[in-house]
């Protein structure tokens, strides 16, 4: 017993010494840990709401336990159609974002890296970053004005599209489900391309110039530079970013959706987070909202695990 206690004491001292020796690093990580406790772990208790007939006056613990009833109502009951439609939309909107939105910041970073004049490059980068700092309310307000097509007034973009014959006269873009996803993606690309390119630009800048020089000596042209030096050099960053993106495939930001969608476009616009907002907050059915969100989170968790596993097997680059 004494020996074991001594051993444990020794271990504690050893850990304490390790922490003390690197205390600056631990101090740096402390805010992150606190953030996780407050915003990620503490709210996890709220997941219990998904299994309860939650009543605000009784609180989470004292509300009646109803097992999987909320999940059944959601997936097979009265809300099934809305829920599965939202689930499908979440997946599709995110997938389109991955297909169309993911490569564009990479292309932008490549183009930025090829600009020789540093001042011009910085100006261009700053201009493309700017939309990121506008609030979603401002962005969507602008979009709604540009595509508005009322009985009397018409937005610039709607007018342009009608004048070139891309859409029929009188088309109300914001009222038609078919236009929602392109509108959402184009708005997102415009807003985030510049800012998202920072990480790729940094990855390109970290590639050793000697590799480019070596290729030049071998007679490589600009495209071969990109293909044989830049892309391989960016690969670890690209892989990690794509894993993170896949992990978030069911986490479509709800702000822009809620600001842009309406009853006419639910069929293509309503995502899990907007569904949760509507059911949980607007209608006050927190249990159902919680169940939907939990389901969403579990699928997201499985996806990120899967992506990480595949990446590790295929490219030897992974998050863990």
């Amino acid at each position, binding site marked *: 017993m004494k020996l074991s206690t001594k051993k444990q004491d020794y271990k504690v001292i050893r850990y304490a010494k390790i922490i003390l020796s690197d205390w600056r690093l631990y101090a740096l990580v402390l805010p992150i840990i606190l953030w996780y406790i407050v915003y990620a772990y503490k709210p996890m208790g709220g997941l219990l709401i998904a299994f309860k007939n939650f009543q605000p006056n*009784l609180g989470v613990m004292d509300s009646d336990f109803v097992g999987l009833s909320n999940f059944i109502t959601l997936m097979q009951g009265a809300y099934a159609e809305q829920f599965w439609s939202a689930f499908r939309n979440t997946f599709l909107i995110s997938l389109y974002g991955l297909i169309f939105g993911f490569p564009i910041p990479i292309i932008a970073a490549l183009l930025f890296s090829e600009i020789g004049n540093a001042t011009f490059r910085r100006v261009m980068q700053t201009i493309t970053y700017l939309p990121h700092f506008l609030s979603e309310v401002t962005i969507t307000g602008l979009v709604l004005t540009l595509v508005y097509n009322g009985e009397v007034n018409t937005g610039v973009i709607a007018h342009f599209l009608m004048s070139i014959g891309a859409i029929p006269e009188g088309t109300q873009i914001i009222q038609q489900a078919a236009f929602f996803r392109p509108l959402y993606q184009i708005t997102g690309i415009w807003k985030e391309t510049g800012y998202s390119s920072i990480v790729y630009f940094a990855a390109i800048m970290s590639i050793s110039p000697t590799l480019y020089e070596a290729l030049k000596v071998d007679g490589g042209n600009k495209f071969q530079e990109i293909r044989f030096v830049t892309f391989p050099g960016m690969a670890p960053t690209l892989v990690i970013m794509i894993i993170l993106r896949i992990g978030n495939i069911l986490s479509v930001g709800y702000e822009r959706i809620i600001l842009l969608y309406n009853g006419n476009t639910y069929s293509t616009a309503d995502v899990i987070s907007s569904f949760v907002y509507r059911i949980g907050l607007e209608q006050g059915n927190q249990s159902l909202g919680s169940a939907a969100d939990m389901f969403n989170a579990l699928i997201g968790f499985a996806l990120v695990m899967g992506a990480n596993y595949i990446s590790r097997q295929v490219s030897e680059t992974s998050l863990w």
Partner: protein
Amino acid sequence: MKRFIVLLMGIVLTLSLAACGGSKLPTQTTETQATDGANQETTSTGGGELAESLTINISNGNNQRTITYNQATPLTYPDGTVYNQGDLKPVWKYIQDKLGIELKDVAIQDQTSKEMMDLNAATNFEDAVVYGGSIGEDVMSYGAQGYFVDLSKRLDAMPNVKAYMEANPDAAAAATAYDGGMYHLPYVHPIGYYSRMFIGRDQWVMGLLDSADALVDETETLQVAYEGYWDRNATNVVDLQNAAASGGKLTREVALQVLLDYIKATYPDLAKPSDLYLGVGAKYDIDELVALWRVVKLSPNTLSKLTTGNVVDGAVISPFFVRAAGNREDIIRLANYFGGQRAFGTDSYGSKWYLDANGELEYSYDDEGMLEAYDYMKQLYSEGLIHSEFSDKTNKDDFRTSMFGMDQNEGQKQFGFMIYEWVASTTAANPTVVAMLPPVTTLGGSSEFVHFVENTRVIKAEGWAISAASTEEEINAALKLFDYMYTEEGNVVQNFGIPGNLEESETFEGPDGTQFPKFNQWFMDSALELKNNDISAFLRDFIGAILPIGYQASIGYEYQNTVNRGWESWDIYLGAGVITPNYEAEDPLLKLIPPIFSLTEQDKAKLATTSIDETTVDQIFLYITGADTALKSKEDILKLFTDSGVATYEQVYQEAYKRMAQ
């Protein structure tokens, strides 16, 4: 090290899970509270100690509709008193001084009543003594669980409330929960007066029908879709117009000529064709109205010239429109005129209930008659007779202003013909518009054609209540405040404002001879300057009167807001004896239903398994507007309701109504 971090994270996770979710109010506490409430309720508060201050939370999702003055512009009364942002509004400062109780506003800016109730339920309603807004249904439910004071046991401390409830048993019944308790005092409209009317431009009707002098060449055409409903006359005017339409396309000349010929043949006694539609003798039905709407729609040049003096290039006419997209369900009220199909049982879009001939509560939106009416509305919309943007809730425009209130603005191209709206504010928006009687229809099993409007003044779901978590002194103070609103003085203050904005020695005489407090010139000037002459908004947002709390509203302020052709409008409806539902009606079909239903916990649990909500309503408007994603048929709509659990939904409310009726 890895193990240490894993351990640390594990501890954090465990602690966070353990720390989560614990209610501040476990069941035991609830019971204790209920017991406390019962003890308190046996004690008479008459003459009891009063708290020095009261916390009040009135939430309506609008930061201007609280008891605090939230305007950037200070308000200076004639006596020099200045109300700045953050002060109590004049009415509430006056009440505070009068009662000697400090009033503290604890409402959160722009919070809705629903959000307020949900959040405060989580803290046992301890954050305020008085809660107000659209809270009736929640308060009935929480009240029965002991969270709100049962006012029925405190009536001795509120003699004026007691007298009012005895004199107005409908109000008392509407505020009584399933357990017999009265947990809130409701906001009661001036019952018995017309509220909303069909209001339109009679100048247009006369210009189009009575003479060809005003007619200007038109190029618009209209693809007919509606096929008519009634067969009460020898011919149906919609049938005739459809038959005359070339390839289904109707021109103004054809539509107008057919309508004029029809009126001449069907109503030979009319002095002039417009008499079919205008004045107290109007007797048109929905088909005849549609025929007129078609002519109106096809006459943008003529009507823009009649309105502005010049033909407006590109003018767009909306024959029928709603005040704003938020009022889109007013379109559903058109169903009333297709054989008397009922839509709403009281003055609320949420109340899609009515009593059938057997007195049974029925959900209206999935009725066979309503499903047919959706088709008619769809056809009218496709013809362009209903404003194209009426159901777009992303559009925050005030259509009443843009279609009635901006006629003389340069570049104005949008003009509306007809709306179903509040008479005083709508006739104030445009000096030329006036009430038109509703289309005639049959009701229930009767074959008699009558003028009927479903919307009327009612007991509202809004009101206020006292938290049972309050101290006895606070409850006594709140009871005193509640009772004050039912005194003569309190009623004047809540309806008209404080003495500083009223004439001292002059009253306003209503059309039936009733005398009301009269707004002084300062009030009228200020309302014009600060709120564009919207008296009711000025009273609420600046003065602090007519908030949705427990009191009896007066028609007097609305009378004083009546200008232009508002009086003429009242006379038309009164003269024709337009029928409205009421609380005393013997015919169940004409009986108003309670504004809210008192639901038990079991009821609420059952409702949670249904999905009859705003999204369902969205689907109906998609059907009417023919959106690409819309349901395709009436059968699809019926299936939508069935899948959404309408049977359970209906059963819950039917049982709740039976309990209340008993």
